[in-house]
């Protein structure tokens, strides 16, 4: 696969009020790769994702500078922020089953985009639930509530919802903290399938998860990039930065 830049972040700074949390970071994400982001708490991983789809706008008193370009287009100068968000699928750490039926959970985004015909919605719902490896478990009860599913199922429902608007980028923010290892593995398999169709940004606390999935991994620490490298370098014996080695090996001081 030809190496093609999909997302280009240049000198991104983010401040909440007077407190700067991202200190001018620059990196590229290539089309079709799984890009891992690791780092301890407070390293601004989630804030970074929120800059990407501009849900940061909903937080008052934030200041963003620098640029984030998706397909060469700056997300902060985009014509419609809603069109931008539909290009990005976002999966939150804790599963959020909206208090709607399973069907409506997945059909929500297409409906918001103006698609209302049932004949058009039903195939989308089925495709997304299949992609999220949930279809077989819920196909007989699409009209029961999404919130009644188990945690792992709800997280896959969240992924199905994130896929329902056919995003080009899928961002997962520590998707596995609330679910068991077996379900995690199933979702990881799902991601391996999905990467053929989209770029995946995987924020994770589990360094081993990044090692299993990511093509390249970025180590963020306190809003700075410590190191970006291919998985075998970051998780190998000789990453460029000592801190990366310590963090990955679990001897971070």
């Amino acid at each position: 696969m030809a190496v093609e830049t999909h997302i280009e972040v240049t000198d991104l700074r983010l401040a909440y009020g007077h407190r700067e949390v991202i200190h001018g970071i620059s990196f590229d994400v290539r089309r079709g790769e799984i890009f891992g982001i690791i780092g301890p708490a407070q390293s601004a991983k989630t804030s970074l994702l929120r800059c990407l789809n501009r849900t940061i706008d909903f937080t008052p008193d934030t200041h963003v500078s620098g640029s984030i370009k998706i397909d060469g287009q700056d997300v902060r100068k985009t014509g419609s922020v809603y069109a931008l968000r539909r290009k990005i699928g976002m999966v939150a750490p804790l599963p959020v089953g909206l208090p709607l039926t399973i069907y409506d959970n997945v059909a929500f985004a297409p409906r918001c985009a103006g698609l209302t015909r049932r004949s058009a919605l039903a195939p989308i719902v089925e495709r997304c639930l299949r992609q999220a490896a949930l279809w077989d478990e819920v196909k007989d009860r699409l009209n029961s509530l999404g919130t009644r599913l188990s945690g792992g199922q709800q997280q896959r429902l969240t992924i199905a919802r994130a896929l329902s608007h056919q995003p080009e980028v899928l961002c997962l923010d520590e998707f596995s903290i609330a679910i068991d290892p077996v379900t995690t593995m199933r979702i990881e398999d799902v991601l391996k399938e999905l990467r053929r169709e989209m770029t995946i940004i995987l924020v994770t606390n589990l360094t081993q998860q990044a090692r299993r999935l990511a093509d390249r991994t970025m180590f963020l620490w306190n809003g700075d990039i410590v190191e970006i490298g291919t998985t075998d370098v970051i998780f190998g014996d000789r990453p460029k930065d000592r801190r990366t080695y310590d963090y990955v090996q679990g001897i971070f001081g």
Partner: protein
Amino acid sequence: MTDAPENNFTATPLIRKRLRQETMAKWIFFGMAAAMVVPLLLIIGYLAVRAAPSLSLEFILDVPRRGMTAGGIWPALVGTIYLVFLSLAVSAPIGILAAIYLNEYARDNWFNRVINLAVLNLAGVPSIVHALFGLGAFVYAARFGYSIISAALTLAIMTLPVIIASTREALASVPPSFREACWNVGATRWQAIRAVVLPNAISGILTGVILQVSRAAGETAPIMFTGAVFFKAVERGDLFPYYLDEQCMALSMHLYTLSTQVPGVMESIPYATAIVLLGSVLLVNAMAISLRVYLRTRKKW
């Protein structure tokens, strides 16, 4: 169990002391909670006993007779219903929409802080001040005169801040993660509000509105200055006895009049009036509670 060689699970004096405190605390709290019920039962019981000679369906349907010293309370009951429904028809939409703005859209800037402050202060204004405001604003300035409209609008202003507060409470109880999930897939704020926030807040919103019925029905001062009248001749059992630009009778006002202004009233009539006022308010509250229970069973998380 003394012959057990070694029991690791015996209560130490410290544990026993804590247990005694625990029991004491529980009973004190229970006592306070139970004490709440006593005044209500005493009030209702006392009223019911004193009102018994007059209480009948006839009392509700009949008009006051012989200079209000006998007869029923129909015009006052209908007047109260008029006032309550009109005032809530005005204040509920305004209050709910304002609360949606304040809770879902408003940023934390000086203008919205001023709005918040205004709402809080409006809630703290005594009803007699509302009455004077209604008199100046609606009766004179807006030239509605002493009328049902003036009184209802005054009551609406009085209930508005509480409706705003309770609606905001209900909206704030919907987890923010639901909104974010909607925004993440490209929904606008309004799409998120309509699809997820409102359906889950509606029971709380309605409860807040309906509870204002009792306030609107019970207040005397605001309507006394703006649209309620001592006596108005009305047909017995007439459902639509008033025009909106006329003055009307009201239960709370009627009760005040009977108790203080009219000599020689049959003793049980004021009590029966109070019972009807209390009963209709409790009826509405009961409706609010059952509506809430019904909507809660449909709540989805």
